[in-house]
């Protein structure tokens, strides 16, 4: 894993001191809220419904054990004993006090963490595949490139006041787990005809008010040229992106209005002028970063472990957990263990201080001190020996972290919604809890199979509802919460934006509505079909009918 060197540390340290001064100036009345607001936002400090919120960056979703342990400590000391992992692979604290935030940031800086790039109209924290460096299907570990993007984009002098925020996601695997097609820039690693590894570059994806799947602007960009190419895209966006209307300011609107061909032309023209400049990264430097993310010291093991098999046959709950939460590793004898933050009826993505500390301990003991945060709001122990899985699960299970539901109908993405968020139009967490309880039975969940439900508490779509197989958007109708259902969304390599099924449902009706959709799917599915496959085969009508009848 990448370790900060003294330059990185110095930068975070200076930033922390700078913010401490700014808070001091604010509390002393030397600057007004109007002047302070953009400064606090650039340090991840929002004012939410009940209190301030601090959003801490987890660059490309990778954490070391000591960092996760520190996040737990921060939850206990500066907050109310918990934190919320978000769809941006970040963590949010809901109750910090303004005058204590500089100290919290200092404690974060001690473990090389910060709140940079978590807010504002800058290039935000880069996200990637949570299984990077472990997945059996990956071409190459994307994290060295993510780290280079992190450095290039941190306090970029030209791109800190963009028309709007800007999100980049990277996948090193053909099976996209990072939703790269719904980001401002999506990078998909692949090989060209000459056998070189590089990236397909997609632009203009995004959710929110006007969702779009990104369009390919370049089939292939070599690794050495990636950064100058990104700079070219950003410069075109900074110069030509709309600034007259905040809802039309994302690059997706520019791509939509001008057309991808026009944007490609502008970007290529810009790139031609800078590609041989100082942003060209040579092979030696790339190799240096690849080395930083070198695989840990795996033991040479047989892929089969007798104890593991025995535990599976003896303990049904463990076997269930393995079935849903454990994923194939590229190293024989190892596995990827997903830690569900979706206990039945719980709050999606929330983890307590002690849960964070436990996962930190387990990662130290069993996973080379490596932990990942997923955009689906779970945690991952990426490198666990199969022989250790039972011990890991037993510990997780005791701490209510052993729920066997990865990818199932109860593994729901939910934004904080009106329970916390100042922008919300409806609550989203209680709905996810009711749905989770309704489908709590594990056999039933397993029978239903992969079904991604995603819930947002307003049109900003932090809960990714547009790309849920079933998406739910909370709205406000004359003072009452009501929920709009979309079907057929998908965040994977086959990305698609869901379609609105029809009129919305009241809070009381919506869980039944979801259940009737699931029942319909079970009735009409063909063997091996997931919900999304069935939907794609039969279309909206059969589902619409169960929701609305002749209505």
């Amino acid at each position, binding site marked *: 894993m990448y370790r900060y060197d003294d330059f990185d540390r110095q930068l975070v340290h200076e930033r922390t001191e700078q913010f401490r001064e700014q808070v001091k100036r*604010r*509390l002393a009345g030397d600057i*007004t809220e109007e002047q302070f607001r953009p400064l606090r936002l650039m340090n991840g400090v929002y*004012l939410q*419904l009940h209190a301030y919120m601090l959003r801490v960056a987890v660059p490309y979703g990778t954490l070391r054990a000591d960092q996760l342990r520190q996040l737990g400590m921060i939850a206990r000391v500066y907050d109310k004993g918990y934190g919320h992992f978000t769809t941006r692979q970040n963590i949010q604290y809901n109750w910090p*006090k303004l005058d204590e935030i500089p100290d919290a940031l200092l404690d974060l800086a001690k473990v090389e963490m910060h709140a940079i790039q978590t807010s504002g109209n800058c290039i935000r924290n880069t996200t990637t595949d949570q299984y990077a460096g472990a997945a059996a299907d990956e071409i190459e570990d994307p994290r060295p490139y993510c780290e280079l993007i992190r450095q290039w984009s941190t306090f970029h002098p030209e791109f800190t006041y963009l028309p709007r925020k800007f999100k980049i996601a990277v996948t090193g695997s053909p099976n996209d787990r990072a939703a790269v097609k719904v980001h401002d820039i999506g990078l998909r690693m692949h090989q060209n005809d000459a056998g070189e590894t590089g990236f397909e570059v997609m632009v203009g994806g995004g959710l929110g008010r006007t969702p779009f799947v990104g369009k390919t602007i370049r089939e292939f960009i070599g690794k050495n040229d990636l950064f100058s190419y990104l700079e070219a895209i950003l410069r075109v966006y900074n110069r030509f992106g709309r600034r007259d209307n905040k809802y039309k300011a994302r690059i997706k609107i520019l791509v939509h209005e001008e057309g991808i061909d026009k944007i490609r032309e502008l970007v290529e023209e810009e790139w031609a002028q800078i590609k041989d400049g100082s942003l060209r990264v040579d092979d030696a430097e790339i190799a240096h970063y690849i080395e930083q993310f070198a695989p840990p010291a795996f033991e040479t093991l047989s892929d089969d472990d007798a104890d593991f098999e025995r535990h599976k046959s003896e303990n049904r709950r463990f076997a269930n957990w393995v079935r849903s939460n454990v994923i194939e590793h590229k190293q024989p004898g190892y596995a990827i263990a997903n830690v569900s933050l979706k206990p039945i009826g719980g*709050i999606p993505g929330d983890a307590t201080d002690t849960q964070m500390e436990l996962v930190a301990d387990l990662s130290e003991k069993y996973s080379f001190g490596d932990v990942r945060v997923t955009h689906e709001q779970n945690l991952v122990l990426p490198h666990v020996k199969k022989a250790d899985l039972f011990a890991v699960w037993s510990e997780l299970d005791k701490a209510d972290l052993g729920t066997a539901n990865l990818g199932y109908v109860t593994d729901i993405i939910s934004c904080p919604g009106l*329970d916390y968020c100042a922008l919300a139009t409806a609550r989203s967490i*209680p709905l996810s809890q009711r749905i989770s309880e309704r489908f709590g039975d594990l056999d039933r969940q397993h029978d239903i199979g992969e079904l991604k439900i995603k819930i947002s508490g307003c049109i900003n779509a932090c809960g990714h509802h547009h790309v849920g197989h079933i998406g739910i958007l909370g709205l406000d109708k004359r*003072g009452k919460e009501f929920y709009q259902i979309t079907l057929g969304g998908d965040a994977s390599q086959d990305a698609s934006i869901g379609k609105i099924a029809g009129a919305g449902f009241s809070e009381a009706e919506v869980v039944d509505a979801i259940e009737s959709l699931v029942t319909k799917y079970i009735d009409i599915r063909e063997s091996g079909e997931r919900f999304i496959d069935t939907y794609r085969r039969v279309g909206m009508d059969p589902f619409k009918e169960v929701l609305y009848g002749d209505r």
Partner: protein
Amino acid sequence: MSLQVVTANRLEDGLVVFLTSDGNWSENINDARIADGKEAADALLAEASAPELDIVIVGPYLIDVEQQGADIVPTKYREVLRTKGPSVREDLGYQAV
């Protein structure tokens, strides 16, 4: 007849507060000064927006309320949540006593 009170977040800790009769800020909405009608509401908001309060509170605004017995209750659910805390964590916020 429309009743309104002024709410804001306290600068130092961000917690929800309400403008009281004596010009202070209280965590309890029942301490809030009620404005009856538009004129009184405008005056209340003007008082809350005084520049010198920028060092005490952030973002004052008016909310609609009803008098229910001894209690002042916001009419919008969003504001009800602000007087209580997250509905999914009844152990947190003002509702947790």
